[in-house]
C-alpha cells in the first residue's frame, strides 16, 4: 500500500510539471466543451429569435387584385417585394425564397363568397425556407379565420358554430425537461472531459514509461506489481476527476450565461446537480482510469497509445447518439450499464427529476465491479514478462 502511495505521488508530481498534461487536463478538457456549448446555444437561440421577429419578405404577384388581403398580411409582418417575371424559375434558382401569387379570378371568387385561391411558390427541400412557409401559412390562416367569423356574423350566425371541435394542448414538459432536450449532449461532454483529463497521464505512466525505458528499472524494485498499477491508476483518476470537477463548474457558469429565459427553459445546474453528478461519476472515473491504463499498456510507444485512446473517446458517444436517434423510455436496467447509466442519471438530474437511490446504487456497484475486473486483467498484463522489456 505504501508502494502504491509512493508511485501515486511521483506520477502526480511528474504530471504537474508537464505542460502538455496540464493544458489537456486542466484547461482544454474542462473548458473547451462548455465554451463550445455556449457558443452553439447562442447561435441556435439567436437564430430562432431573429426569425420570429424579423419581417418576412415575400414576392407578391397580383398585389393590386387584392389590396385588403395584402395589407392584412403586411400588418402581420409580411414585407412585400416587387414582382418578378417568372416566380417559379426564380424560386428554383434560389433567387427568391418565397412567392405569393394572387390569380385574376381571386376578386370574383371573393365577391361571390367562394373559396378564393392563392398560390404559394416555394422549395420544400430548402431547410431554411421551411419556417418561412409555416409563417406565411399561419398569417393567411389568421386572415381567413377572421374573415370567416365576420361573414358568419353578417349572416346572423355565431362563429362558434363553425368550430365543432377545439383542441387545447396541455404540454406536461417541465421547463427543465425542455432544457434537457437541448442539453442532451451534456452527459457525453462530461464523460469526454473525464476521458481527456486522465488520458495523457495514463499514456505517460505506461506506454510512455516503456518508451523512455524506465519501466524495467521501476519493476525491479521490491514493490508488488499490483501496488505499482494501483498507484498509476489513482494518479490517472485524480487528474480525470480534477478535469471533471472543473468542467462541471464551467458548465454551472455557462448555464447562468445561457439565454434560458428567452427559450423558456429552466436548467437545474446548481450546487445540488454538481454534487450528485460528482458522486455518480466517481466510480466511472475509476473505471475510465483503469481502462485507459489497460489499453495504453498494450502499446509500445506514446503515439500508438494515443491512437488507441483517441478511438476510445468515441465509445461514450454511443449511448448519447442511441438516446437521441432511438428515443427510449428510461428503465432501471439502463442504470446498470456503465457509461449508459451515468448518462441517463445526469440527464434526469438536468431535467429536474429525482433519481431513485436504487438506480444510483445499482449503477455504482456495477461500475465498480467492472473497474475491478479490468484492474485484474491489467494486473495480469503487468505481471507478464513482455511488459517490462522495452526493446
Amino acid at each position: 500500500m505504501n508502494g502504491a502511495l509512493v508511485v501515486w505521488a511521483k506520477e502526480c508530481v511528474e504530471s504537474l510539471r508537464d505542460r502538455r498534461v496540464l493544458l489537456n487536463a486542466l484547461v482544454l478538457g474542462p473548458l473547451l466543451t462548455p465554451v463550445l456549448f455556449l457558443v452553439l446555444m447562442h447561435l441556435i437561440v439567436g437564430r430562432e429569435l431573429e426569425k420570429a421577429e424579423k419581417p418576412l419578405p415575400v414576392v407578391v404577384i397580383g398585389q393590386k387584385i387584392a389590396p385588403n388581403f395584402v395589407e392584412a398580411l403586411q400588418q402581420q409582418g409580411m414585407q412585400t417585394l416587387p414582382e418578378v417575371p417568372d416566380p417559379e424559375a426564380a424560386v428554383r434558382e434560389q433567387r427568391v425564397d418565397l412567392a405569393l401569387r394572387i390569380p385574376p379570378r381571386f376578386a370574383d371568387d371573393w365577391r361571390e363568397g367562394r373559396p378564393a385561391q392563392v398560390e404559394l411558390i416555394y422549395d420544400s427541400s430548402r431547410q431554411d425556407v421551411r419556417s418561412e412557409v409555416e409563417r406565411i401559412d399561419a398569417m393567411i390562416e389568421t386572415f381567413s379565420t377572421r374573415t370567416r367569423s365576420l361573414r358568419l356574423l353578417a349572416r346572423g350566425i355565431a362563429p362558434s358554430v363553425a368550430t365543432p371541435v377545439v383542441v387545447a394542448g396541455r404540454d406536461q414538459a417541465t421547463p427543465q425537461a425542455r432544457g434537457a432536450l437541448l442539453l442532451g449532449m451534456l452527459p457525453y461532454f462530461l464523460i469526454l472531459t473525464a476521458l481527456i483529463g486522465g488520458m495523457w497521464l495514463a499514456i505517460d505512466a505506461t506506454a510512455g514509461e516503456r518508451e523512455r525505458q524506465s519501466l524495467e528499472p521501476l519493476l525491479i524494485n521490491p514493490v508488488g506489481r499490483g501496488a505499482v498499477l494501483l498507484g498509476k491508476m489513482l494518479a490517472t483518476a485524480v487528474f480525470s476527476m480534477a478535469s471533471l470537477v472543473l468542467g462541471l463548474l464551467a458548465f454551472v457558469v455557462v448555464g447562468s450565461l445561457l439565454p434560458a429565459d428567452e427559450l423558456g427553459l429552466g436548467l437545474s445546474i446548481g450546487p445540488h446537480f454538481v454534487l450528485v453528478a460528482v458522486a455518480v461519476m466517481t466510480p466511472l472515473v475509476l473505471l475510465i482510469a483503469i481502462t485507459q491504463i489497460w489499453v495504453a499498456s498494450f502499446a509500445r510507444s506514446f503515439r500508438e497509445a494515443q491512437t488507441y485512446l483517441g478511438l476510445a473517446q468515441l465509445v461514450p458517444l454511443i449511448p448519447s447518439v442511441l438516446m437521441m436517434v432511438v428515443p427510449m423510455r428510461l428503465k432501471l436496467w439502463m442504470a446498470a450499464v456503465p457509461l449508459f447509466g451515468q448518462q441517463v442519471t445526469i440527464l434526469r438530474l438536468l431535467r429536474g427529476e429525482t433519481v431513485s437511490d436504487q438506480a444510483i446504487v445499482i449503477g455504482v456497484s456495477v461500475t465498480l465491479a467492472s473497474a475491478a475486473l479490468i484492474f485484474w486483467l491489467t494486473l495480469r498484463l503487468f505481471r507478464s514478462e513482455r511488459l517490462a522489456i522495452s526493446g
Partner: protein
Amino acid sequence: MIEAHDLWKAFGATQAVAGVSFAAQDGEITGLLGPNGAGKTTTLRMLYTLMRPDRGRIRVDGFDAASAPIEVRRRIGVLPDSRGLYKRLTARENVEYFARLHGMNPQQARDRCSELLCALQMQTLADRRTEGFSQGERVKTAIARALVHNPRNVILDEPSNGLDVMANRGLRDVLRGLRAEGRCVLMSTHIMQEVIALCDRIVIIAYGRVVADGTPEALRAHSPERNLEDAFMKIIGAAALEGGV
C-alpha cells in the same frame, strides 16, 4: 553472493539461454563476457527476477529467486539494460523515488540520497532535471538509483555503453570502490579492455552457454601469446564448432 545453477530460457523457438551456471563472489568483480546476442542480458534479467527461468535455480545471499523474489530484490542493486530516467524529475528526485520504493521514509530517503550523490560527486547535478543530461550523467544517476538501498550485490548490464573516456574512468573507480567495500559486483560487457582493467573473474558466454569460467590469468593460458583477446576468439570459435550454431 550470486549463484546461477543450470539456467534455461527460451523465447518461442529461440533458445536464448541453455544451461548457464556460475557464481559471483563477494568482494570480487565478475565479468560476464560474450558477443552480442549471446544471452548475457537474458541471464541478468533472470538474476534480477524480471524474468523467470524455464529451468534452473538462482540464489542471492542464499535466498531463492523463485520462492523469495522480494527478498532477492532487496539484496541487489541493478543497472539494467534499459536505464531510462524520469526527465521531469531532478536527479535527486529520481534517486529518492527508488529509495521510497525500497521502503525508506522521506527523511531516510533524503539522507541516503545526499550521501550517495556526494559519494558519486554529483552535487552540482543533483537538483537539475534530468532532461538534457549527458549520457555519462544519466548513467551516473542510474547507478546512484541502483545503489540507493545499499545492496550487498550489484548487477550492471553493459555499464560502459555510450560513456566517453572520462565518464568511463569515473565508472571504473565506482566499481572498484564497491569491490573494496566487500560487495559482490556482476557486470556484463563485450569490451575486452574493460574486463582486463576490472574483473577478478571472467565468465564467457556464447550461444546461451558458459564456454569458459576463470581468472583472467587462467583464460590467457588458452592463447600462445597469452593475449586475452586471442584467447577469447579461440574459445568462442571452439564453442561454435561444438555445435553452437
